[in-house]
């Protein structure tokens, strides 16, 4: 497996060092570990990494500096894979991220996930490979909102869409729901039809469905 060159941004020194050690130990190469958004932008410009892992809330304002930095970075490099970590679930952060660079190669996770080492590393790999992963909590929250156009979906279809949005493959969804992959394919086909996505490149439609999902919320 090729080494994934990673830029890490996290203002808490303890956590930053812990994460850097973890990544270095499991086949990533942390080329820069920085403590604020400005340094993050500079480090990405300097190292041209394969992956960015950043905290959303960072100095100086301690609101969403990290998020804004990666949205800016992805304007220049839309394919730059990024994983944003957040202490709390905020759906608008997720949709901002998914709006950037066509929603490819994006991860939005609660910080808690770093503790489940294997799963966390697997997510980093998937995002680095261009997949989109959204924290299940975000998905769960959004599922509760019952407004158009998701209102036309059946419960099972919503469940499947939720897993799609979380970044699972069809096979993984089938395994989780204990159904055949063919059944999952059928559900996904129905979802795409109901949401009005023409048949085409599969991953694009998956991203579009995820985006619909995330945008389907009361206007803030």
């Amino acid at each position, binding site marked *: 497996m090729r080494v994934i060159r990673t830029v890490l941004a996290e203002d808490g020194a303890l956590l930053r060092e*812990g994460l850097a050690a973890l990544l270095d130990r499991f086949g990533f190469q942390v080329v820069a570990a920085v403590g604020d958004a400005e340094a993050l932008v500079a480090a990405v410009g300097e190292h041209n990494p394969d992956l960015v892992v950043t905290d959303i809330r960072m100095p100086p304002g301690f*609101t969403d500096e990290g998020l804004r930095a990666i949205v800016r970075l992805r304007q220049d490099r839309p394919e730059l894979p990024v994983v944003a970590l957040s202490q709390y679930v905020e759906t*608008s952060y997720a949709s901002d991220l998914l709006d950037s660079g066509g929603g490819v190669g994006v991860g939005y996770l609660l910080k808690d996930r770093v*503790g489940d080492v294997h799963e966390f590393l697997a997510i980093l790999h998937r995002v680095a490979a261009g997949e989109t992963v959204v924290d299940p909590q975000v998905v769960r929250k959004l599922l509760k909102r019952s407004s158009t156009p998701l209102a036309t979906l059946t419960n099972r279809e919503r469940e499947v869409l939720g897993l799609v949005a979380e970044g699972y493959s069809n096979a993984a969804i089938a395994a989780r729901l204990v159904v055949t992959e063919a059944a999952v394919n059928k559900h996904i086909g129905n979802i795409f039809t109901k949401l009005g996505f023409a048949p085409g490149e599969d991953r694009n439609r998956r991203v579009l469905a995820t985006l619909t999902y995330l945008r389907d919320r009361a206007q*803030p």
Partner: protein
Amino acid sequence: MTSVFGVASSKPEAAIGVIAPRCRIGGGENSTSAPLTTVFVVAVRTIWEAMARRRFLLTSWPWRGLSYVLSTPLVSLLVGMAVAAMCLPWFYLASRFLRAQPTAPAETVLVGLMGLVVLVAGGPLVAVPVARLERLRLRLVDADPVSPPVVATVGSRLGRLRRRYTEPATWRELAYLVVVTLAALPSAAIVLTLAMAVALIAGPLLVEPESPLALGFGQVRTVAEAAPFALVGAVSIPVTLYLVAGLAGLHATAARALLSGADERLRSELVEVSRSRERLVTAFEVERRRIERDLHDGAQQRLVGLILQLGLAKVEMPPDAPGTGSVANAHDQAKLLLTELREFIHGIHPQALSDLGLPSALQELADRSAIAVTVECTIPQRPSAAVEGAGYFVVAEALSNAGKHSGATEIRVAATVRQGVLTVEVTDNGRGGADARHGSGLTGLADRAAALGGTLSLSSPVGGPTTVRAEFPCG
């Protein structure tokens, strides 16, 4: 209302906040419930009260009234001279008109305006010291001292002067100049009346056959002739003294109304109290944010670091090593603790509120509710943190109450900022009959709203719907 009876304090500022009659005879049916400090006295504080008593003429009050009325023309003279000096430009204009001298319209306007400027600029300079003198003189006929208006004592000299000119009290003092000038006329008339009465009484002593006395109604030559006039004089003295007291009373009432700063003092203290209450609420909000930030950047970060280390340890330990179970257990507990800490921090101050504002924070609240909630927000620009916080917690409390008691299936949350007022409204389709008094946190929130100058109302007829509505000025 508890009324306070007793000796009117010689320091009126000590009685601020208590609505007490300025002078009353103590007692009454609720005297048993009166505070312990109640003192029962019978005291006359003003010349009006003195006049109402039978032995008025035997007290010092007529003479106090007389000295007041006698000294008025002196003040009037001084004031009149100063005012006349200030009106010189106008007198000049008037004289030009009276003498039919041609005057250019521009000159008329210019001189007229100059007169106005001199009066407006110079008036307070005369009015303020006169008011000070008159407050002292008022003590002759009114035992309660008149508290002067609050004068700005801080700030630059220029700032103090500017405030002096913009205070209504200054212009009331200026109006008093007119009162005191006009009071000269009745005062002088009464003084003359009194002098005449004295002259009539003195008639029999002064009269001599060879030098007749002119007493207004004719001439008298003998003591016998002068005696009826002396009688008239003697009778008219008490009447005149009552007139004197009446005039003094009228003048004193006008003086107290125009020169007293007590209302303003109360008002300004009230303003200060509400400001400090608002500051407290704002400080409270700032403190909550600080605690939230400290916990977030301190404890929460460290806990995530700990979870990471424990996760790493779990991965690195061989599955059959001793202690694997304990590490896994510790890992799970730390994760649970992080979830609890996050909830705790959220309760202190939701991060979404400070980071993203009300719409996101309300949507997040809605997402947490077990009942279906729709959120509509029209907030063109963010209100202050204190107002945002108060609005947020009203919605949070209303949602939690609706979740617990209403049996509702749908809740609507609306937040709007219109014309400098933030309105938040939470309506559910539940069974209604909610009572703000019974343990709901709405009472505390109403206090918080009031401190920010806002209001909170609850409408919950039996059978529903229940609407909680709060409004906050956020200009």
